[in-house]
């Protein structure tokens, strides 16, 4: 065995810490000024068709930002969006033409007042209900408003919709053109400023706390009732005003336009754009509103035969299908939505540049006792948040030997193990470096293929299926001859419990069962995560013996990840020490026992 090698124990270099989330900030006023200037230029240069679409985008974006306050910030699922917009729209329709009342901005102000009242009403069920149940309760509002709307239209003898006057300012009617677009832009800007003020200050923290855990939040002192009501009231005011603007913009109110589909389309906007971010809501509104117009423009541009004709005839269906594909795609691959995903990608690129320069790899002079079954070279694991859990780790597991990785909580041990067993492939965690199992690179291999190739994980939790019996576990691993393994003395306890569900086993018995299942999968290397966790000392010793026996009798290699230094040192042939995502030392167990870092590792055994 070579001498103990300890590389520097200095704290990790600055760049590896995902610190300074602080972006290089452009002052907020400059962003607002630039955005306003661009918007004014747009309003005066775009053609009428583009302005028509833009007006709808602005109104829907306002509504989506309002909905986002309840759903994204406070985490309360609401389907009441269309109904709230309908309330504002109908109110504006009723006031339209009434002398003294129909004049801008009175319909908007009254909509705000009614919106606040309806918001209070929706908040009542929200105090007791959560999730899908709350969504269903808000659905009731949808049906009530739709019914009332129909009745009103019948009474007014306007079955196809109620006419609404355009907004007048200073005697001038704001018909479609730069004027109305600027007004709508101003409303969206005001909405964003208000919501931003709320979410970036104390109220935003309250809502986030309620979203994470209402009970824990109230134990912190958050008045959950008050803040949930506040979220619904503010959000409802915004949404109702947007409904009023929509009526004045379309010059028509009709119950058909505030359908359940319409309500759902706002949730689609938030999913695509990014729940919980203001810009996500705006981007989502832009995509959802603009998509059909883009599609029909494309269809019109194509020659009206063959594909072009087919597209033109089916734009409506293709458009809805595309919404579905977008929603599914985002939910599956980027559940955080477009804006946060882009931000994260941008942050990652910025961070990756300096980090790759620094991160020195640890000299790879691991034990030269025979060929390595498993070899990890320069492994880096970067989580979505930008945190680098593993930073240039290299290690080898030789044939028929037990190698332990020790380190404290958060040192990167389990992340290393999960990377080897292939779990990060499906979780979109950034991974670089090479992982060789019998010389074959498995760094891009799925967990099931990794197991088939001989890299078998014994996880820290969820290691058995509670409702399957012991016998069923063994049969699952190896249909024939599975019970031979129970001949071994250490597994005798399991043999007595063949017909019992694994959920009834003690922690130690579960560990033994998990190990016997793993041994049946004809592994080349066992990847064992924290086997001693929650085990009494006597049981830890017994499991250690089983692992040793598997090495001696089946010639298995074992990679252990452990916090229990004593247990691991007693069992391992070679020890790696990790800290801050790096290997900071390695050696035979005798030489590691007195290491400074191990003093900080729990040692209860």
């Amino acid at each position, binding site marked *: 065995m070579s001498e103990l090698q300890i590389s520097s124990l200095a704290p990790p270099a600055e760049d590896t810490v*995902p*610190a*300074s*989330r*602080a972006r290089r900030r452009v002052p907020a006023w400059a962003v607002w000024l630039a955005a306003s200037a661009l918007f004014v230029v747009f309003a005066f240069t775009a053609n009428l068709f583009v302005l028509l679409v833009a007006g709808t985008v602005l109104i829907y974006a306002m509504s989506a930002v309002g909905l986002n306050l309840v759903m994204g910030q406070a985490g309360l699922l609401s389907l009441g969006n269309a109904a709230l917009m309908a309330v504002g729209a109908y109110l504006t329709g009723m006031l339209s033409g009434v002398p003294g009342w129909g004049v801008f901005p009175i319909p908007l102000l009254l909509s705000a007042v009614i919106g606040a009242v309806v918001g209070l009403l929706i908040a009542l069920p929200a105090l007791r209900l959560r999730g899908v149940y709350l969504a269903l309760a808000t659905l009731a509002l949808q049906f009530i408003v739709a019914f009332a709307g129909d009745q009103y239209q019948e009474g007014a003898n306007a079955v196809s919709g109620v006419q609404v006057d355009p907004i007048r300012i200073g005697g001038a009617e704001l018909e479609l053109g730069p004027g109305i677009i600027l007004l709508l832009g101003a409303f969206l800007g005001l909405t964003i*400023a*208000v*919501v931003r*003020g*709320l979410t*970036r*200050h*104390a*109220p935003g*923290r*309250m809502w*986030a*706390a309620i979203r*994470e*855990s209402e*009970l*824990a939040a*109230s*134990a*912190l*002192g*958050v*008045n*959950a009732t008050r803040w949930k009501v*506040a979220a619904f009231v*503010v959000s409802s005011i915004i949404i109702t005003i947007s409904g009023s603007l929509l009526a004045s913009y379309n010059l028509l109110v009709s119950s058909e336009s505030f359908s359940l589909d319409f309500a759902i389309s706002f949730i689609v906007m938030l999913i695509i754009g990014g729940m919980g971010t203001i810009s996500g809501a705006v981007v989502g509104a832009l995509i959802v509103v603009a998509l059909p117009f883009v599609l029909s423009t494309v269809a019109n541009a194509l020659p009206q035969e063959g594909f072009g004709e087919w597209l033109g005839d089916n734009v409506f269906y293709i458009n809805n299908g595309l919404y579905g594909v977008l929603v599914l795609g985002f939910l599956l691959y980027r559940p955080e939505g477009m804006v946060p995903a882009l931000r994260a990608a941008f942050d990652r690129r910025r961070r990756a540049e300096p980090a790759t320069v620094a991160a020195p790899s640890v000299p790879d002079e691991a034990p030269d006792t025979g060929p390595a079954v498993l070899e990890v070279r320069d492994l880096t694991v970067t*989580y979505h*948040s930008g*945190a680098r859990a593993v930073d240039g780790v290299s290690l080898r597991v030789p044939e028929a030997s037990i190698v332990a990785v020790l380190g*404290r*909580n*958060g040192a990167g041990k389990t992340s290393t193990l999960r990377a080897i067993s292939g779990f990060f492939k499906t979780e979109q965690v950034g991974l670089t470096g090479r992982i060789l199992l019998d010389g074959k690179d498995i760094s891009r291999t799925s967990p099931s293929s990794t197991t088939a190739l001989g890299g078998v994980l014994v996880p820290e939790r969820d290691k058995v299926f509670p409702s399957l019996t012991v016998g069923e576990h063994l049969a699952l691993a190896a249909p024939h001859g599975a019970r031979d393994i129970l001949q071994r003395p250490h597994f005798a306890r399991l043999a007595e419990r063949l017909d019992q569900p694994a959920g009834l086993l003690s922690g130690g018995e579960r560990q033994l069962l998990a190990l016997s299942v793993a041994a049946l999968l004809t592994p080349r290397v066992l990847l064992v995560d924290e086997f001693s966790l929650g085990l009494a000392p006597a049981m830890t010793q017994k499991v250690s013996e089983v692992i040793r026996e598997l090495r001696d009798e089946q010639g298995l290699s074992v990679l252990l990840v452990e*916090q229990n230094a004593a247990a691991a040192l007693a069992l391992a042939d070679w020890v790696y020490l990790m800290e801050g995502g790096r290997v900071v030392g390695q050696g035979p167990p005798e030489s590691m026992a007195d290491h400074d870092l191990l*003093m*900080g*590792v*729990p*040692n209860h055994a």
Partner: protein
Amino acid sequence: MPETALEVSDAVLRFGGITALDGVGFDVAPGETYGIIGPNGAGKTALLNCVSGVYRLDSGSVRLFGQRIDRTAPNRIAALGLSRTFQNTEHFTRFTVLDYVMLGRLRRSRASVLRSAFAWPLAEREERGERRLAHEALARFGLDHVAAEEIADLPYGVQKRIDIARAVQGEPRVLLLDEPTSGTTTGERKDVSQALRAVSEQGISTVVVDHDVDFVSRHCTRVLVVSHGKSLGCGTPAEMLRRADVVEAFLGVPAA
């Protein structure tokens, strides 16, 4: 000024047919650091949950500086000056450390929808003040360098200290610490110890529930031992650990 900061008498708590607490009582003097120990499932955390209002007692009373709080909502209790930490730090893992610590100041700062929505300069100035205070609190616990991190990215022991820093931010009169050392390494435990000493130097009455008997003995003037929802009594750590029934409750076997 009443004699006791916190007084629990004859606390009874039942879940269905199970009696989690069966007539437990204790009292904490102003400025005292008080320990509660007992084996797994003895009812220690249930007791803290009753004090902080998360559970409602079936009978018995809880008094905070003489005022009954056993029928008071958790957020009202917090407003009266009782802070707590959590056994599991899983609740707010997506918060940044700074935001989380700022949540601790709820009692001292008034958040207002109108001000945040329309009076940005005012809200912003207040926010800057709050942020500065949170940074100072983190610095006191030696944690300012992680202020911008997400809690989930940090080691368990650091999370525990962040939770203590958050709880102290509200300048509580009584602080409840739920297993501050569980899952921490020996090195991290020293840091938690230091944090706790800093807290008691501020004169805050503190109740510590923990499995680590050494840790509790070192910090607490008195300990309450609970087992199977019943109190085995209260005394100085040395006194209690000499008692045969206490040793038996911990080891599960009659003491030799």
